[in-house]
């Protein structure tokens, strides 16, 4: 099924929030519409759904991998070449901590960088409707839905007080 998007432009926060309510009442799912702003409004300003993200997974997995590599490297070498120094245990934690710390950090940073690139590109290979007025303070409400529902979305946005409407993402794509 082809996906289309339509953008309604609003000049104030209240009408944009009302548009979201109207879309909800018209039967659009929360995943079908989003708010576009040039300013980071506090979460929930427009009554939109709280974004779900997997950001922390990347650094956590990276940190775990780096830590494990650091641990294996340090403990493995010490166990492979066991040398008792001053009666202390073979596995000496303080020097191991240096490598394990760096391993943890390197893994976490590497995975974070990969995560940022991954999450930045994959969710939206094709960008939907957009208007440059958004960076100047206008608030956009973008509806991305089946082409059969685009006209309905336009009506809802227009009735909610959208100053301008724009279609986008006119590319066939399977859902």
């Amino acid at each position, binding site marked *: 099924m082809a996906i289309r998007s339509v953008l309604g432009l609003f000049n104030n926060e209240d009408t944009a929030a009302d548009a979201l309510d109207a879309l909800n009442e018209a039967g659009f799912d929360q995943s079908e519409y989003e708010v576009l702003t040039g*300013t980071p409004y506090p979460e929930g300003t427009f009554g939109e759904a709280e*974004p779900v993200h997997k950001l922390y997974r990347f650094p956590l997995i990276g940190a775990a991998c780096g830590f494990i590599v650091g641990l294996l490297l340090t403990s493995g070498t010490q166990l492979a070449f066991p040398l008792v120094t001053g009666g202390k245990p073979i596995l000496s934690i303080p020097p191991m901590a240096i490598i394990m710390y760096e391993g943890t950090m390197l893994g976490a940073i590497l995975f974070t960088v990969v995560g940022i690139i991954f999450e930045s590109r994959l969710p939206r290979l094709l960008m939907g409707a*957009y208007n440059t007025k958004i960076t100047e303070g206008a608030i956009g409400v973008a509806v991305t839905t089946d082409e059969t529902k685009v006209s309905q979305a336009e009506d809802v946005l227009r009735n909610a007080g959208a100053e301008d409407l724009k279609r986008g993402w006119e590319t066939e794509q399977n859902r």
Partner: protein
Amino acid sequence: MHNGESQNGQANLATPAGINTDLLKRHGNTGKLFRSVLLVTGIMFLVGIVGIVLRLLEDGTENTRVWGYHAAAFAFILTTAQGAVMVAIAPRMAKAHWRRPISRVAEMFAVVGIVNLLMFIPLLSVLPSLEDGRRSLWFYNAADPILSKVPVYTPHIWASLSLIFLVLSGLMLLWVSSLADLATIRDSSSGRKHRFFAWLANGWHGTSKQWFMKYHRIGILGAFYFMMLIFTHFLIATDFDMALIPGWIDALFPITHAANSLQAGCATVIIAMFVLRRFGGYGDWIGLDQFWGLGKLMFALSLLWFWFWFSSFIILWYGSRPNEESVLNLIIRGPYQPAFMAAFILNFIAPLFMMMWNPVRKSIWGPTLVATGILIGTFFDRIRLYVSAYSIPGIGDSSVDKHMLHEIPQTVMPHFIDYMIWVGAIGGSVFVYMLATRIFPIINIWEQKELLLYKFHKKLHRTEVLVLGKPD
């Protein structure tokens, strides 16, 4: 719109469009002064590159003595410019409003890390392997059948990785933080410029999810930058300085090195703020609030400078073993005493006795003057620590005793090539920073627009007050 210079650094622009117009206009303008300074610093950068090439051709990398000033220049940039990024991170985490106009100024110092990464390359060749028997973190011992298997270039490997990832996390932080501003430039430009910024903005449309992710990424990358900065200082201070001086064992020195970086980082940003305000045309964006706020941080860190130094000094001084005495004779009492005194006065005494006064602390010229002193003091401090360390005879020679310094080497005065390298290090840092200002707006546009959401004027009895809110 706005006339003259504001005191609180928040130009009186009431709409996002007004902020866009004002800051994009400034971003797009390159005056004659800018181009002249860019040209001069570009030439300085080239002079530095020629200096390093000359040094390599004339002296090679065997004789560590001639590389002391190069190592000091590297450590100076690490301490100042690479520490400056922290000014964007810590106050942002505290949700301070005064730092909004200067966060990008600080973040942008991440690009200077690229210059320092280049400067680090020759040092990898200069630092001998662990085979010379110096005492290090890495437990290498040629005489031991097991410990002799420790890779002899371990310090080189870990320090390189650490520095590379420090620079990488700084650049990622700068990019992620700038995404919304890059999109703003994209939306207001056309042709090749539009395509370039569209590529950099990476599909930024300002959806709730993108803003949400951006905030979290800034937080994560900021935390990683801080952790890597401390760790890089730890490795550089240990392997590229302390381990070269026989008999110097000081658990506090690496963290002292890192703490110095936080102080010098604040000083670097204050100088950049002053230059932007005085010569860059940002007088109505960077005002008293920013100097006052950052000046207080710098003051606190100047007091810490003494605390860290004294904690190390008292152990060596009370211990007074021959190896400890020789270290004190090298880096404090001996040939580098003038450099130490300069650092002590400029990094601690002068900030203490100047910043303790309200009129000085709450001014623009006061913190700037103190910051200039701190940078000069840091310059001397890095010279005393690194030039002295690299001048020790017998580095790389396993037949020389590495447990105690028996003879204090004479002061190494800079050679003509050393001047070239220092000129290149400073010039290259400024050059790269200035080039970055052509891409990233020096004042954070989206954070200024965000501030509009959280400030309003309220009548309070017979006066009017500015009320500032904070995001939850």
